[in-house]
């Protein structure tokens, strides 16, 4: 059987933190070639799901597979999966170049590729500057450069446009679409449907850890007056965390 390539596959994925059921029997598959929007109100379990896929948290039950394997079993994972979870997660005293090179080295990636990625995200001019002085938008770009280092077929971005100015939002949107057009698998989370409408082709909606809907944007727009209406109707029962997502 050929190895599934560029596929994220969740099988009854469940994660409990004490009494909180953060992810509840979640099953869905993300396929290559388009942007899959991962949508849900704050606290729906999107970030937790991504940490489970990356093996950062251990599932209480179920499994998350990338290209048919557990992430932790990948020998050089950066060549298969790239992820941006939290743009602020970097040592402020390190230069952008060294930050990336620290990661690159672990997967046998050299400094040439680091420079290339800094160029690609528009940070070549500040490569030697400490990241502590970077704006949120610059940190997002650096995080995206890190995700792209190994030229992976699967990419996951957790709310990458949060807090960005319109230029930054536009840049990320275009990047996502071009990465998908190259045949990669893109899982992009957001709590805003308006964002998804412009970027995603497929949409997975979660609420309170459970799968609510898994459809194409086209299917949703035929069933509801607008995507916004679809989102509100589908997640109406899931807003118990007091987070309306606005």
């Amino acid at each position, binding site marked *: 059987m050929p190895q599934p390539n560029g596929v994220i596959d969740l099988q009854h994925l469940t994660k409990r933190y004490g009494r909180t059921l953060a992810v509840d029997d979640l099953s869905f598959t993300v396929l290559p070639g388009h942007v899959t929007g991962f949508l849900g109100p704050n606290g729906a379990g999107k970030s937790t799901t991504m940490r489970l896929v*990356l*093996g950062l948290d251990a599932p209480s039950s179920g499994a998350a597979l990338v290209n048919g394997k557990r992430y932790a079993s990948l020998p050089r994972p950066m060549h298969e999966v790239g992820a941006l979870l939290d743009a602020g997660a970097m*040592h402020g005293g390190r230069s952008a170049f060294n930050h990336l090179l620290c990661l690159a*080295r672990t*997967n046998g990636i050299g400094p040439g590729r680091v420079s290339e990625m800094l160029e690609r995200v528009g940070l070549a001019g500040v490569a030697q500057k400490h990241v502590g002085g970077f704006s949120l938008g610059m940190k997002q770009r650096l995080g995206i450069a890190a995700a792209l280092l190994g030229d992976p077929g699967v990419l996951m971005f957790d709310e990458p446009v949060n807090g960005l100015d319109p230029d930054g939002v536009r840049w990320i949107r275009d990047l996502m679409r071009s990465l998908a057009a190259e045949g990669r698998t893109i899982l992009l989370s957001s709590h805003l449907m308006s964002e998804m409408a412009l970027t995603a082709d497929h949409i997975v909606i979660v609420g309170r850890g459970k799968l609510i809907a898994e459809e194409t944007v086209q299917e949703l727009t035929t069933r509801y007056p607008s995507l916004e209406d679809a989102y509100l109707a589908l997640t109406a029962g899931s807003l118990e965390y007091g987070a309306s997502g606005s």
Partner: protein
Amino acid sequence: MSVLASEWLKIRSVRSSHLTVSISLGGILLGLGLAWMAVDMYDHATPAQKPGARLAELEEVVLMVPQLCMGVLGVLATTSEYATGFIRTSLTAVPKRWPVMAGKSVVVGVIALFTGSAVIFATYFVCRALIADRFGGLYQIPFTDKLPLLTALALTVPVFALLGVGLGSILRTASGSIVVLVGAVYVVPIIVGNLPQPWSDLLGSVMIGALPHEITRDTTTNTVYGSLLPPVAAAAVLVTYALLPLLAGTWLLCRRDV
């Protein structure tokens, strides 16, 4: 191998590492200053006072500086990743996790070994040159006789550094880990020294400060600690100080959600 290169870059690309190594090396200057003061005092003493003049081995006095600094280097090597959240990115790159701890330990251990040796030996030679035959010939003992003890003293510095890496990985906060580390250098030995016998000698024999003397069966210096352990046992205790927290920290790192 690639993880080792990464950990080496992580350490050398942040300022706190340069600072802790520099302050450690400042221990040599401290030794120089103390030796100079001691010489000055000795030379101004009356002939009657001179035979009774005592001085502690200054390389053992200044040893605390690299011990603490390299301990902090070890602590920060792990806890700074938790503080910034960078640990998640690190472990995404190396999902097996234990190589990250192994790489950190090697890098921090080697830096501490070089730094500790530099401080101990440089301080020793500075003192030997300055103090010469003063203080009852304290620094006239042949170097080859002192070499085992000086080596054992230098080795306590990487032990502190690895203790720091281990504690940092267990506690995941810099403040908590540094408190435990400082407690291990300063507080516990004082408490142990004030316990009733036989506890003072029994526990005093397993304090880190006692081990170099026990390992080398050194008789050239007086120690404030107990000295009940045979060399092999003392060496085993020294290794345990480094490895036990490291293994516990690695085990936890491999099991915990981050």
